[in-house]
């Protein structure tokens, strides 16, 4: 008689246990719908329309439970997905608020997100570290400057963040009701093109600047800019000098901003677009410029641009309401390109009547129109 060893008995036991494991059951669609209805769950479907902004490769959705039922979790449901046109989920049957934006929180290194609640969902610009500030550096004959280690156009890139939200996506009092709606993200980082007319620009080799009292962040649920303000550094200026001292040269740059502080964007429903309203008076917006002259001197200017910015933001909002098309950029100009000055005259604070800036004339350094670079002179040196 063959003795069956303990080893073989163990193998047999393991096999019996293994074959008793079963697969997940397969259902028909009708059976699944019945299960959802019995569970008290709701199926939500969102259609995301990216026509008003750049279509991303991924998106993030936050679902905030609204009714605080004691047996339901109030922590938001977070979804990251590469399917940006349609999103479906099954959640407990109750009302929700939703915030949707392009990409994900980790892909914006200079922004900090917070989603403690729908009303407090916000994004804020991170403060720039000391290492990032760096100093200026001269590039080539167009006198373009870039601040080392710093994002061109400041800490925000125009059109980098698009967002949509809805305060109520209530499924129904009926269990198992399927709700659907459209989210239409809009761009909330406006591009601002700043152009400054400067006389005597050929005396300068570099320029840096800041814009003060721009909104530091954006409330993604309420679609409102934060009342908190920040000063934004302006880098990547392009300089175009004019040989004629009577006519201005120009310095230009572009930066991204959430806009004026405490500006509301009313969101009327899940499927309609947004309209914008400007709120109470804000702090003054100043453009501070520092010019580095060819003789080593520096000249600083500060201009109050509150009126210009406010007017341009309102114009952009009005245009959006009228045409229905989003406005991605606004233009702010200091001085005028057609103004002429007398190079020998004195101007108070070195500012012209139309707001152009005047730099002192210096003779050292690079001169516009120098044509004899490239000729070599052989000089014999005797020791």
């Amino acid at each position, binding site marked *: 008689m*063959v003795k069956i060893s303990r080893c*073989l008995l163990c193998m047999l036991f393991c096999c019996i246990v293994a074959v008793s494991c079963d697969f997940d059951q*397969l259902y028909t669609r009708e059976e699944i719908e019945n299960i959802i209805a019995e569970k008290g769950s709701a199926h939500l479907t969102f259609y995301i329309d990216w026509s008003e902004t750049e279509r991303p490769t991924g998106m993030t959705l936050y679902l905030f439970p609204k009714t605080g039922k004691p047996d339901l979790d109030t922590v938001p449901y977070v979804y990251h997905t590469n399917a940006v046109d349609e999103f479906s*989920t099954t959640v407990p049957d109750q009302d929700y608020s939703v915030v949707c934006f392009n990409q994900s929180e980790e892909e914006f290194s200079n922004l900090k997100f917070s989603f403690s609640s729908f009303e407090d969902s916000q994004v804020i610009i991170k403060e720039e570290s000391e290492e990032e500030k760096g100093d200026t550096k001269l590039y080539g004959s167009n006198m373009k400057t870039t601040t080392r280690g710093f994002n061109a156009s400041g800490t925000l890139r125009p059109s980098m963040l698009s967002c949509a939200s809805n305060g109520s996506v209530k499924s129904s009092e009926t269990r198992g009701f399927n709700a659907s709606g459209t989210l239409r993200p809009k761009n909330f980082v406006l591009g601002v093109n700043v152009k400054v007319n400067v006389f005597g620009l050929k005396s300068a080799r570099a320029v840096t600047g800041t814009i003060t009292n721009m909104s530091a962040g954006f409330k993604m649920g309420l679609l409102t800019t934060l009342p908190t303000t920040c000063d934004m550094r302006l880098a990547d200026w392009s300089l175009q000098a004019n040989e004629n001292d009577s006519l201005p040269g120009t310095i230009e740059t572009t930066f991204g901003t959430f806009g004026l502080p405490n500006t509301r964007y009313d969101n009327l429903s899940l499927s309609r677009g947004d309209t914008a309203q400007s709120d109470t008076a804000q702090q003054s917006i100043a453009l501070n410029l520092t010019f580095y002259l060819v003789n080593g001197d520096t000249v600083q200017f500060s201009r109050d641009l509150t009126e210009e910015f406010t007017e341009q933001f309102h114009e952009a909002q009005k245009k959006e309401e009228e045409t229905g098309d989003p406005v991605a950029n606004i233009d702010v100009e200091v001085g005028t390109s057609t103004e002429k000055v007398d190079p020998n005259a004195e101007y108070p604070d070195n500012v012209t009547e139309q707001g152009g800036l005047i730099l002192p004339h210096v003779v050292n350094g690079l001169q516009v129109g120098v044509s004899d670079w490239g000729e070599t002179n052989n000089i014999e040196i005797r020791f």
Partner: protein
Amino acid sequence: MGLLLTMVIASMPLLGLLAQTSSVPESGRWLDKFPVAVKSNVLLDAATLANVSAEVGFGNRWSLSFDAVTPWWDSNDNGKVRTTQMLVFGGEGRWYMRGWNSCQEALTGPYLGVYAYGGRYDICRWSDGHNKSRGYQSDNLFSAGIDAGWSFRLTDWWRLDLNLGIGYIQSDYRHYDIIYKEYRMKHYNGSFGTVLPARAGISISWLINQSWQHRNNKQKGDAAW
């Protein structure tokens, strides 16, 4: 399910019958007198398919092995379902061409074999093209064929087994989609049957009882079998 249980239970007396037909010494347990190797296919391990085999040698040239592939993984990342659930059992009979005369040379050299296995599986993966998770579930997977390989002797008690087999594989399956992030909805039924390379392995095996026996014999001063 019944077929699998029958296969497993039926193999037990078959093993006993084979043991009785071999030259079993009168003293001692019969299992101690035959090389028994426990092994795992590292190719399947690398694919997260948990597997184990036991090979029993007898008659200096023959062996029978019993294989089990039993991964049971299931994860759901916000609707991206990844399921790898398999219960596949089988066996293989091998003829070692060179044979062996000592326990240190047991189960080494080139060999030819005949295998058969069966089982059930549930495999589900995310499909970017369809933007959903899709899977295949089956209660009858069957394959039989021949294989060949070479078992290299690494040490007295360790072997590196390389093998490749070709055979017929057949399965009826149910195709499903994942909807609402967690429910498996039937899509359609299908089946396939074809001849293809159905078996490949790089296995590390350990002659478990022979190393113990040799250690015991050395301590007692007895000669190896």
